[in-house]
């Protein structure tokens, strides 16, 4: 790289990176900027089914979609549920993923292979099929779980919290392998000498994990945390499939499913887009705050 950069004259070197970035910029522009622009635009328009099919003219509303949204008590309850659900899922995914990553480094080859294969299989299952299979397992009348536990007729989706817990378990089941594999690779890369030194100084597994591994793995952990926050905040398939679109009386709605209902089932595309924009902003703020705290704590990323 450096040899290439020093060879051409000074002015050309200033422009070269821009040209090199152009293809990426075009791809990003098409894939991200344009849809985001459309989303933002729709959210300030009166854009319902009649406008899409050309039956009525599109009207500019300004912030009306947003004021309607923020004035709706339903929005706040769905938002609270989404945040709490995502937080619980992120915590559980990280705990399970990190625990199993540490376990992977400590077991012999065959169990390690089996555990990795099982995790990969869970990772590879498409979320619609995974959710459906879990639904069968927990079916009220015919499910294996109810038969084994002798809970015939127990509806797991009836209570709001058991329903959320079950869906959460499926979300964790789908997403822990990514955390596990990433952290396992990170742990394997930690120099043996550091871990040995810790062991000689009398540090146990728990202490070694928190005092040695976590600080060294901080950049990796940052990535998996942010990934998990984004995934779990946006969770759609599992909720939509397992609670049949939001559960009894809509008790298990999350923002994404609600936005889908508003936009596509009720034909309120403008309002749905406004929910999408709000979600995007929340994620942006959470991610920025998290990156900032990481930076503050001294570890450069």
């Amino acid at each position, binding site marked *: 790289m450096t040899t290439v950069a020093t060879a051409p004259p000074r002015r050309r070197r200033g422009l070269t990176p821009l040209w090199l970035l152009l293809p990426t910029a075009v791809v990003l522009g098409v894939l991200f900027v344009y849809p985001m622009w459309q989303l933002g635009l729709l959210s300030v328009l009166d854009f319902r*089914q*009649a406008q899409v*099919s*050309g039956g009525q003219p599109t009207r500019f509303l300004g912030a009306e979609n947003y004021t309607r949204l923020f004035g709706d008590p339903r929005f706040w309850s769905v938002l609270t549920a989404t945040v709490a659900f995502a937080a619980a899922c992120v915590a559980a995914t990280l705990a399970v993923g990190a625990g199993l990553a540490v376990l992977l480094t400590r077991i012999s080859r065959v169990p390690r292979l089996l555990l990795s294969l099982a995790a990969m299989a869970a990772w590879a299952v498409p979320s619609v099929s995974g959710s459906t299979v879990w639904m069968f397992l927990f079916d009220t009348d015919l499910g294996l779980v109810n038969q084994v536990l002798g809970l015939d007729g127990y*509806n797991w989706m009836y209570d709001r919290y058991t329903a959320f817990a079950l869906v959460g378990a499926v979300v964790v089941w789908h997403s822990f392998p990514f955390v596990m594999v990433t952290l396992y690779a990170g742990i394997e890369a930690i120099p043996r000498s550091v871990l040995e030194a810790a062991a000689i100084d009398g540090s146990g597994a728990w202490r070694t994990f928190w005092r040695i591994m976590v600080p060294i793995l901080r950049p990796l952990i940052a990535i998996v945390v942010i990934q998990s926050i984004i995934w779990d905040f946006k969770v759609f398939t599992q909720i939509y499939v397992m609670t049949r679109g939001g559960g009894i009386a809509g008790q298990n709605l999350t923002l994404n499913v609600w936005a889908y209902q508003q936009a*596509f089932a009720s034909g309120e595309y403008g309002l749905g887009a406004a929910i999408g924009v709000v979600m995007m902003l929340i994620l942006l703020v959470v991610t920025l705050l998290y990156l900032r705290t990481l930076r503050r704590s001294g570890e450069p990323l």
Partner: protein
Amino acid sequence: MKLRLAVAAVLAVGLSACAPSTSSPSSLPSDGGARSGTLKVWLFDEPNRAPKEAVVKDAVAEFTASHPDTKVEVAYIAVDTRSERFKGAFNDPASAPDVVEYGNTDLPEYAAAGGLADLGPTVSRWAEGADLGAEAKASATYQGTLLGVPWFLGVRALYYRTDIFQELGLKPPASIAELTSTARTIRQKKPDMFGVAVGGKYTYAAMPFVWDAGGDITSLDSAQSRAGLTAYTNLIAPDNCPPQQCADLTGGKTVDLFAGGKAGMGILGNFNRAAVDAGAAKGKYAVVPLPGSKPGSIAPAFAGGNNLGIMRNSQRPALAGDFLTLLAGKKYQTRMYEAMGNLPTLKSASTEVAAKDPFLKPFVATIAAGTKFVPLDPGWGKVDASAVLPTMIEKVATGRATVDQATAEAAKQIDAALGK
């Protein structure tokens, strides 16, 4: 500075170029479009689809035999997600079907979206068109334009298990009070069965109770509507159909329960006959009209039914019209009745099957006693898609809200959706 100007210019261009896409439906080709090629047809999926599929297959064979160089592609779409599918078809003409089956309650919404073609000329040219009653035609007309051909009528009545009733010495209920007590007796004597299978998501089983009490969808917070809803939600209780199992049941699920022998009674439609005959309840059931609160009266049923229509974007409207009139004709209406129990809309066909088949008697009696319909308003589609009524029933059934709270909330949402 230059860069800033350039950015501003790009944004300005973008503003005009990136307005959200609005598809303006192309008008029908005036010559009727191509007379050959592939005709795309959307029909509804059913709890037990095989008999329907067989009849449709025969119709397609007859059609392709008389129309050379044509192919008919039939897709069966799920009823639950039809709203999204139809909106997709309206927005993307390229992937839209030509002929569609749609629920009569969806008509105003589809009409307002400008998605359906005017069938007036097609029906007036059609030899059997005169056989279609004025009432049937009116049910498929929106603001003066005929947008569908009624394909079949569907009303719900009370199916009950003759063997269970005989064993327990019960009589078919003649009032809502009797229905409730009979249901409780069955549940008490046979704890592994539900008395009458009712569901929180089964709006068209709940509405007859509301209508019978003198309430309506547009006045859910009235005392009459509340009384009717109370009568229905009283059935979603441990002594008949425990909320744990029944609060989230759809109409289709109650059909499965009754057909599978898990319920002593069920509020099912004439069109569910094939599904029940395919289950454990086959040959062990009879049907009476759903009773009202006054002994001997009949609760007003929801006048359900499906229409056949042609999409406004269809590139082969003439060909589509030929297929539609074939499928909606007497021959295939009668065959659909034999296969599925669908009540024909053509007068000659319906008198014929009603005379032949005593099974239809309770349904014909229900229709004669007067039926009700959902508000004829484009906003109804939104009420339906955002599950206002099921949410209301579920909230009451699970004890999350009182009848007064749930109905007040639903009434507010319905008023907003209907623009009142």
